[in-house]
């Protein structure tokens, strides 16, 4: 049987990683590589990156010569008439976007279709986001479409909104089916009122796609209710996790450790973690809470913690390297993820690999995977605190939760995720 040929469009890719997106794309690409002919196009790559069974190309490496053959055959007219791109688009900011809705363009053809060396230069500076993100997204889509016209493949698989414009463009010029993969949406980052350029682009991408893969059923419900995408197109597939051998280290102090790990933004619910900490310490004084990560809420959280008198028992680590995160996990007793809206939540799986029982927000995808984890609505800090106290004091319950988690993570592999993705491909190609 002829192997399926897939053009994958990614944004973050190791070593350029800001959040879970790059990790997930990389994990899935590696697992898919054994079953399909895979070419991956991302904004920028490191020339020295090892190849891992698939073709990897960076827009930063593309030359004008590479595009010359198709330059004249391509017109950019898909999404919107854009004269200037508003500044400060950042997928990780929690603030609501104030941008006006962008209307679909009416002009037929613009010189806009041309790619210049300046456009390619957008992808060379190491920053995938920044003030000119909108411009990057558009130029990436033009480069992708022109390359796609010179290449042979059976379908397109695009990860998150930054690449969806490219996915839509490639579909338009090649007629190949489009699969969009949703790792995080504007709903997660900015709440249910979020509207604007990113929201519009997300909606366009999912409308134009033949299949949408949300990373959880939870996110599938968001896609359906918030973006109005028909259920028949949705194929939720959970992420996998790279196996890690997580050990335990000798206790450094008598108190037990409860960990929050993530960006300190509204989406991750760090202020709920503070509240939970206050409630747990009231009942179980011999506990330390650690908030690892940084973000726009850090200073406010430090002040609130001080105001509540939690200092000395509530520790902020700031940004941590991977090694430090692992050291921290190896001394953690309970993992707590009170996210307001978490499409997946890879870090909870990583914690589970260290044998740490988790207390998870019901508004998270990973709660569907870790079936034994204790759950509560993110705002229900009483129940969250209750769960933590029980895991710290009830050894039997703790053992049960850890055991179930071990079974769950064994099943949560990238190979399993890749098998499900293959099914989606076959649906479209048969």
């Amino acid at each position, binding site marked *: 049987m002829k192997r399926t040929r897939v053009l994958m469009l990614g944004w973050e890719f190791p070593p350029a990683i800001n959040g879970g997106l790059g990790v997930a794309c990389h994990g899935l690409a590696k697992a898919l590589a054994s079953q399909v002919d895979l070419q991956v196009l991302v904004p920028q790559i490191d020339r020295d990156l090892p190849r891992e069974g698939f073709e990897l190309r960076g827009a930063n490496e593309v030359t004008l010569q590479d595009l010359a053959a198709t330059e004249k055959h391509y017109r950019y007219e898909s999404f919107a008439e854009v004269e200037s791109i508003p500044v400060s688009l950042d997928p990780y900011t929690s603030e609501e976007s104030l941008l006006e809705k962008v209307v679909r363009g009416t002009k037929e053809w613009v010189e806009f279709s041309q790619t210049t060396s300046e456009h390619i230069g957008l992808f060379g500076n190491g920053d995938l986001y920044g003030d000119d993100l909108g411009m990057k997204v558009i130029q990436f889509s033009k480069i992708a479409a022109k390359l796609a016209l010179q290449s042979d493949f059976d379908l397109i698989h695009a990860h998150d909104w930054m690449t969806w414009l490219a996915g839509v463009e490639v579909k338009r010029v090649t007629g190949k089916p489009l699969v969009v993969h949703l790792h995080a949406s504007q709903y997660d980052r900015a709440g249910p009122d979020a509207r604007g350029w990113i929201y519009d682009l997300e909606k366009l991408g999912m409308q134009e796609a033949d299949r949408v893969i949300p990373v959880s059923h939870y996110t599938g419900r968001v896609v359906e209710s918030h973006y109005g995408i028909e259920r028949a197109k949705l194929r939720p597939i959970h992420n996998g996790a790279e196996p890690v051998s997580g050990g335990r280290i000798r*206790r*450094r*102090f008598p108190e037990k450790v409860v960990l929050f790990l993530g960006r300190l933004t509204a989406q991750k619910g760090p202020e709920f973690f503070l509240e939970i900490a206050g409630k747990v310490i009231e009942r179980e004084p011999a506990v330390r809470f650690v908030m690892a990560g940084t973000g726009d809420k*850090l200073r406010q959280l430090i002040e609130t913690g*001080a*105001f509540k008198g939690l200092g*000395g028992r509530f520790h902020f680590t700031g940004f941590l390297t991977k090694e430090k995160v692992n050291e*921290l996990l190896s001394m953690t007793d309970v993992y707590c993820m009170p996210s307001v809206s978490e499409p997946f939540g890879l870090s909870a799986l990583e914690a589970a690999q260290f044998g740490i029982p988790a207390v998870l927000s019901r508004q998270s995808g990973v709660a569907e995977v870790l079936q034994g984890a204790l759950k509560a609505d993110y705002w229900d800090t009483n129940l969250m605190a209750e769960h933590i106290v029980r895991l710290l004091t009830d050894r039997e319950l703790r053992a049960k939760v850890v055991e179930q988690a071990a079974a769950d993570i064994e099943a949560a592999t990238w190979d399993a995720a890749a098998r499900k993705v293959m099914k989606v491909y076959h649906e479209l190609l048969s």
Partner: protein
Amino acid sequence: MMVASPLPAPCICFQVHQPYRLTSYDFFQIGQRSYYEDDELNQRMFSKVAEKCYLPAAQLFRRLIENSEGRFRIALSFTGVVLEQMADYRPDVLDSFCDLVATGGVEVLGETYYHSLASLYSPPEFQRQIGLHRAKVREVFGVEPKVFRNTELIYSNRIATEVESLGFRGVLAEGVPWIHPLSQVNSLAKAPGTKSVKTLLRNSFLSDDLAFRFSDKTWKGYPLTARDYCERLAGMHGQLLNIFMDFEAIGEHQGRDSGSFRFWEEFVSMYLERGGEFVTPSMAVTRFEVKSDYDCSHPTSWIDSERERSAWVGNAMQKEATLKIHGIEQAVMETGDPRLIHSWSKLQCSDHFHYMSSKVGSDGLVPRYSSPFETSYDAYIYFMNALADLQIRVDRINLARSFVV
């Protein structure tokens, strides 16, 4: 011939202090490392100040005293921790100050050993630190402090009463303009409820001209000449001009380039030539009479434009840190472990809390300039981590003791 009335007597008191700055003590060190100070940084800072200020300024004052036929004097107030650092890092500085004190023209004042805020939180701890300081001064300089000068001039009626009960004859305070009429700053005052202790009020205008404004080119008094300053002093009402400041103002805060050394030399010689005489606080309380009551019911200090406690306890982080460090006093004392008690006491140093200040404007400049940390948040986080480790040590010792008893 008319006999000119005597010139007012300047009483010059310098604070000599360097804190033990903390390291970036992160969460991963808790329970692993029971030492919180950045020795390398502290040594470097001390040596820098020694070269720019301590050595040349001590030498200058020694010469001025020796050439004054006994009419020029100063008072120095050393914290216990700065004397420790001198002995450890730069014994030559300690020798130089010993020589200065040995001239007989220097009065050494009483202090809290750790430059702490203990006076605001715990009378027993306040007393303990004054006792430690007294012993240290006796050991190093062979003298007995008679006048007390609290951390950054923190003062209230209650503190005056406590200081009196410890046998001091005088106490230094900020002459806060909105508490006390300016016209009475240049004479001795007395706190309500005290019997014998006299209060010396700092003249903030005369002091800050030298301590802060001296090299400020935007100040309308710039450049300040020794002649102008002498004129101002000579024209002041009152008998006693209390000029209190950091010793580090000479050469460090006001760098050598600003001409601060030459200014002091000229000013002192000129004032003496005009027939003036300088007094020490002990001389002042003996020689002059109390002219007014100074009723200061809430603690004041010489710090910031508010002249109160907000430099150390203005925001939530500072409030928590100060309450927590003082809240464990009893448990720390119960350990009976001298090393641990010393560690805890050093964490009481007021500088740590000043670094956590989030004030903006000119009052925000000093903590940011002097702090080893980039932000007030970092200062808070690392302090609280160190305190957490200290608490673990305390708990461990007290738990072990409870089994023995």
